[in-house]
C-alpha cells in the first residue's frame, strides 16, 4: 500500500485551516479564556535550590484582600504520592529554585501576587547539587536520601537513579582490529524548548465535584489522567478542553498548574485562571538534560567501523527520568557497528525536572558521536559522507538497540547530500563546513478518529491530538485523498476529552503517522458504508459497488444502469438508507518508521571575537511520504534553527546557590531571525510500509544533527576542536587564546 499511485491531494501544500485565525490574532490560546467570577491563581516558588520545608502557613495570605483560597502541599492527597505530584507542589523538600511550594487564588492578579508575600515558609536550607560531576562524586549531597541506583538497596543511596547498559560483540577485540581510534568527551548544556506561549490554564469545579480544565497542552487526555492522579480523582470527573497551542516541542506533555487550579477552584467555588510568567517557565518547567558524553570509535583504514562505545550521563533534574534510554539507543543508530557498548546514567541534581524536548536525548549523545566520527574521517582523510555511507544502517541492519530495520532512508539521504549543489559548492574563504547525521525512532501508540458526513457531503474529521505542527491540514489531506474528495470539502477538528475518542499525546512525531492512520481507517469505514448505501439504493450487493474518485459506481461488469452517487448524494438520502454516515477507527499503531537526516552547514568564526556566523545550512531528511510538503519543510527548518540555537548560545546559567541567572529571552539566547540563513531543505521519500500513505514522523529528527554539524564546521575552520557546547563567543575566544 505504501507505493500508492496517483495521489491527488496528499503531497500538496494547501493553507492550514487554523492559519487565518492565528495571523489575525483571533486564535484562542491557553490564557485567552475568561469566565464570570473568575479568580487568578499564583504560585509561591522556592527561592532555594534545595531545602527541607519545615512548615508552610497560608493563614495570613487567606486573610488578605481579595484572596478566596490558598493551598500548600498538605492540601493534596498523600497516598500514592509520586514524582509528578511532588513536582506539581513540594511536600517535605523543595528540590529546585522555582519548585512550587504554595498557591493562592484572588480576585485580581495583583492581590494574588501580594498574598504570596504573606505565606510563611520555614525552610532548612540544604546544599544544592548543580552539576553531574558533583552529583556523581563519592560523598555527594543526596537529592533524594532514599534513592538507590536501579532500586538496589544493598548499595548506599546515590544521585544516580538509573544505570543502564547494552553491549554487542566484543568491544576489546573490535578496537584491537581498528587502524584508527578516536576518543573524546563532550558536554551539552541545559536547553529550554523556548515555546512562545507560557503555560496557562483555567479550571472550574462544579458543586458535584466535576472539574473542567481549559489549557494549552500537547495532550489533553494526559492532562486528564495526570491531574486525576495528583488530585486522587477519577478521570470521569475531569474534562479537559485543549486551546490552540503556541509551541510545545515536548515541553507541554506534562502538567504543572492544572491540579493547583482545580484545587483552588474547589476551595473557592470560583473558576481559577493560572498563567506562568516567562521567568516561571524558565525556573520551573522541564528543559532538556545537560549531558556529559564520552565516546570512542575505531575503524579500519577503509573507514569500516570495528567498534564503538558511549558512556552517557544526563541530568534528570529533581526527579528521575532523563532520556537516557533514547540517548543510548540513538547514539549509534545510523551505523552498522559489529562491536559496541553503550552505558547511560540518569542523574539527579537540584534543578527543574527535565521534560521532553524534540527527539529527547538524541541531540546530546549524537552530538558526541558525530563529532568523533568527523575526527575519524579526518584521520582517514575521508569525505564525511563517504565514511558514513561505508557504515550506514540500511534495511536488514540490526539496530544497536535490537530490532532489525525495515526500509529506511539513511543511504538515500547521504547520496542525495553528496549530489546536492550546496555540498558541491566550494566553501567561502575562511569559513568551515561541517556535516552530521540525525535520527529519531518515532512512535505509534493509541489514536482514535471519527469521520462525519454532513447532509451536503462536507466531511468533519474529529480527533484528539492538539495541532502543534499543522496536523489538522495533514488529517484533512489524508481524509480527502482516501475519500476521493477535494481538500476544501474536509474540516479537521481537535475534540476535547468528552467529544472525541482517546488519543495519546501529540509527541514522538506520532500524530500524522498514528492518528493519520486512524483517520484513513475511519474514512475507509465511511467508504464501506457508502458502498452499502449505494447498493441498497441500486438493489445490488455491496460487493458489486466500487468507490472511485469520491463516488459509488457499479463494479465493472455489473449490469446496472445507474448514475454514480457522490458523498453528497448519499449523505442527503442517508435517512432513507440507514441513518447518518459516521465512520470510526481506533488503533494502537505499530510500525512507526525511523526518520534519518543529513545536515551540513557553512559557518565562519570571527577569530577576534569568537562569534560564529552561520552562512548556509542544508537539511536532507527522509519523510517516508510528505503529506504536506511545505509543513514538512517547516519542521525541518524549525528543528534546524532550534538545534543551531542550542549549539550557538542557549544554556542555563546558574549561580553557586542554584538560582537561574538567565530566566528570560534576553539572556537565554535563542536565535533571532537575522541570525539564521535560509535553511535549505530536501525531502527524501522512502515510504514507511506500515502506513497507508508511507508516512514517517518528521518533527523530531530535524533538531538532532545541527549540533554536531556546527561543531564540525567550526572544527573545520579553526583546525582544532572545541568539544563542548554552546559555541558561545566567550568559549570560542578562550579556546582560540589557549591555542595561541
Amino acid at each position: 500500500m505504501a507505493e500508492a499511485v496517483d495521489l491527488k491531494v496528499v503531497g500538496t501544500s494547501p493553507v492550514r485551516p487554523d492559519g487565518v485565525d492565528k495571523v489575525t490574532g483571533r486564535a484562542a490560546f491557553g490564557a485567552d479564556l475568561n469566565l464570570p467570577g473568575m479568580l487568578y491563581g499564583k504560585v509561591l516558588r522556592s527561592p532555594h535550590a534545595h531545602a527541607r520545608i519545615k512548615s508552610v502557613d497560608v493563614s495570613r495570605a487567606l486573610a488578605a484582600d481579595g484572596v478566596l483560597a490558598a493551598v500548600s502541599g498538605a492540601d493534596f492527597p498523600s497516598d500514592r504520592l509520586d514524582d509528578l505530584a511532588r513536582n506539581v507542589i513540594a511536600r517535605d523538600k523543595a528540590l529546585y529554585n522555582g519548585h512550587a511550594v504554595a498557591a493562592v487564588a484572588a480576585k485580581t492578579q495583583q492581590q494574588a501576587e501580594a498574598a504570596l508575600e504573606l505565606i510563611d515558609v520555614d525552610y532548612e536550607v540544604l546544599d544544592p547539587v548543580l552539576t553531574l560531576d558533583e552529583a556523581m562524586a563519592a560523598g555527594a549531597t543526596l537529592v533524594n536520601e532514599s534513592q538507590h541506583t536501579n532500586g538496589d538497596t544493598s548499595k548506599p543511596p546515590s544521585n544516580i537513579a538509573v544505570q543502564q547498559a547494552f553491549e554487542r560483540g566484543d568491544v576489546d577485540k573490535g578496537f584491537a582490529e581498528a587502524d584508527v581510534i578516536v576518543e573524546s568527551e563532550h558536554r551539552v548544556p541545559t536547553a529550554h524548548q523556548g515555546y512562545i506561549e507560557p503555560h496557562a490554564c483555567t479550571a472550574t469545579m462544579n458543586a458535584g465535584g466535576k472539574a473542567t480544565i481549559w489549557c494549552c497542552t500537547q495532550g489533553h487526555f494526559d492532562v486528564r489522567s495526570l491531574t486525576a492522579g495528583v488530585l486522587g480523582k477519577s478521570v470521569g470527573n475531569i474534562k479537559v478542553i485543549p486551546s490552540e497551542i503556541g509551541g510545545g516541542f515536548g515541553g507541554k506533555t506534562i502538567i504543572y498548574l492544572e491540579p493547583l487550579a482545580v484545587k483552588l477552584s474547589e476551595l473557592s467555588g470560583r473558576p481559577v485562571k493560572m498563567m506562568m510568567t516567562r521567568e516561571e517557565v524558565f525556573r520551573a518547567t522541564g528543559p532538556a538534560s545537560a549531558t556529559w558524553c564520552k565516546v570512542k570509535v575505531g575503524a579500519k583504514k577503509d573507514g569500516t567501523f570495528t567498534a564503538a562505545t558511549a558512556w552517557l550521563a544526563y541530568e534528570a533534574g529533581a526527579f528521575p527520568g532523563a532520556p537516557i534510554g533514547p540517548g543510548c539507543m540513538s547514539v549509534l543508530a545510523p551505523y552498522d557497528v559489529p562491536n559496541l557498548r553503550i552505558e547511560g546514567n540518569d542523574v539527579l541534581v537540584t534543578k527543574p525536572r527535565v521534560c521532553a524536548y524534540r527527539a529527547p536525548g538524541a541531540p546530546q549523545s549524537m552530538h558526541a558521536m558525530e563529532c568523533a566520527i568527523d575526527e575519524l574521517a579526518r584521520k582517514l582523510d575521508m569525505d564525511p559522507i563517504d565514511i558514513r555511507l561505508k557504515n550506514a544502517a540500511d534495511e536488514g541492519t540490526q539496530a544497536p538497540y535490537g530490532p532489525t530495520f525495515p526500509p529506511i532512508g539513511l543511504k538515500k539521504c547521504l547520496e542525495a547530500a553528496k549530489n546536492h549543489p550546496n555540498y558541491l559548492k566550494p566553501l567561502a574563504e575562511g569559513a568551515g563546513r561541517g556535516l552530521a547525521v540525525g535520527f529519531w525512532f518515532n512512535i505509534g501508540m493509541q489514536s482514535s478518529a471519527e469521520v462525519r458526513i454532513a447532509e451536503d457531503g462536507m466531511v468533519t474529521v474529529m480527533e484528539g491530538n492538539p495541532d502543534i505542527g499543522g496536523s489538522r491540514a495533514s488529517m484533512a489531506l489524508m481524509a480527502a485523498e482516501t475519500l476521493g474528495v477535494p481538500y476544501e470539502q474536509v474540516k479537521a477538528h481537535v475534540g476535547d476529552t468528552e467529544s472525541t475518542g482517546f488519543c495519546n499525546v501529540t509527541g514522538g512525531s506520532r500524530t500524522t503517522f498514528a492518528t493519520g492512520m486512524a483517520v484513513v481507517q475511519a474514512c475507509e469505514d465511511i467508504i464501506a458504508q457508502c458502498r452499502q448505501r449505494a447498493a441498497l439504493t441500486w438493489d445490488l450487493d455491496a460487493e458489486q459497488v466500487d468507490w472511485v474518485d469520491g463516488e459509488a459506481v457499479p463494479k465493472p461488469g455489473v449490469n446496472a444502469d445507474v448514475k454514480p452517487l457522490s458523498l453528497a448524494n448519499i449523505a442527503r438520502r442517508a435517512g432513507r438508507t440507514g441513518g447518518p454516515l459516521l465512520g470510526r477507527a481506533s488503533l494502537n499503531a505499530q510500525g512507526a518508521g525511523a526518520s534519518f537526516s543529513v545536515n551540513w552547514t557553512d559557518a565562519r568564526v570571527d577569530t577576534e571575537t569568537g562569534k560564529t556566523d552561520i552562512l548556509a545550512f542544508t537539511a536532507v531528511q527522509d519523510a517516508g511520504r510528505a503529506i504536506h510538503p511545505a509543513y514538512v519543510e517547516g519542521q525541518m527548518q524549525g528543528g534546524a534553527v532550534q538545534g543551531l540555537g542550542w549549539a550557538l548560545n542557549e544554556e542555563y546559567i546558574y549561580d553557586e546557590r542554584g538560582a537561574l541567572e538567565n530566566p528570560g529571552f534576553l539572556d537565554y539566547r535563542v536565535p533571532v531571525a537575522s541570525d539564521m540563513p535560509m535553511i535549505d531543505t530536501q525531502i527524501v521519500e522512502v515510504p514507511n510500509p506500515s502506513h497507508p500513505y508511507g508516512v514517517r514522523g518528521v518533527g523530531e529528527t530535524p533538531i538532532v544533527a545541527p549540533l554536531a554539524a556546527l561543531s564540525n564546521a567550526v572544527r573545520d575552520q579553526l583546525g582544532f576542536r572545541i568539544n563542548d557546547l554552546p559555541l558561545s563567543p566567550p568559549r570560542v575566544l578562550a579556546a582560540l587564546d589557549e591555542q595561541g
Partner: protein
Amino acid sequence: MAGYAYLAPTNVDEALGALEEAASVGQRAQMLAGGTDVLVQIRSVDKGPRTFVDVKHVEEANALSMTDDELFIGAAIASAVLNENARLKSILPGLVESADLIGSTQIQGRATIGGNLCNSSPAGDTIPALIACGAVCVIASPNGNREVATEDFVTGVGTNVLEPTEFLVGFKIPRPKGKTSDAYLRFIPRTEMDIAVCGAGVALTLDDDGTCTKAKVAIGAVAVTALPVPEAAAALVGTKVDDDALHAAAAASTAAAKPIDDKRGTVEFRKQVVGVLTRRAAAIARDRALAR
C-alpha cells in the same frame, strides 16, 4: 494598575511643575520617554507606585536643529526618526548607528537616546557614542537649564546627576568640522535584539595629510559607567591611524576596561573584545573622515 498616574506636559515649564508638585507632596515621579526600559522594569524589577511624566509631548525635547557650529537633538526624539534623517546620519553616523542598534524596528519607533542615557545602564549603546562626539546634556531644572558633559552624567549603575525635580531636555553636540567622523560598534552574541557585552565609540578628526589631530574614544559595558579612554585617543592623535596606532588604541581600551564576570561575558572576554571593537570602530571613523 494601582498607584500609577500619568501626565503628559507639553513644555518644559509644565514638566518641571509636574515634577515639583510630586516632590512637594513626597510622591515619586519618573520621567518617561519611549518607555522601552521603564515598561519592562515596572513589570519585573520595580513595581512601586509613581507618577509618570511623559517627555514625548514636551516641545523642547522634540526639537532637532543644526547650525554651522552646533547640533541640538531633543531627548524625546525616537531612534527611528533620527535614523530616517539623512542629513543627521551623514554628520554623525556613529551616534545614529548606536541608536539604530537598540531593539527592533518596533522598539525604535519609541526608544530615544535621551531615555537610553537616563536609564544609565552600563551597557547603554548610545552613551559611548555620545561621549565620543562630545555631546553635552541640557538639563531643565527649577533654576533654569544647566549643562553637563555626557561622561559626567551617569554616576553608577542606574544612577545619574539628575535631581528629582530635573529632567533631560536634549543634547548639544559640536558640529563636526572638516575631516571629522565617528563610529560605534558593540558586541552581542546575536545579530540584534540583545544587550551589549561591550561597546566602543570613536570620533576623530584628520588633517589634509590624513594625520589624526583630535580623537575621542569611549567604551561601554566594561565598567559601572561608560568610560572615556583618553589613552586610546592619545594613541591615535599624531598618527595616520595605521595598524600600529589602531593596535595601540585597542591595547589602551583593553587596559582601561574594568569589567565583571556575568552571564553575558567574562572579564577576559570583555577586555579583549572591547580592544577589538576600539580598533575596528577607529578604522571605520578614519575611513569615514577620509571620505569627507
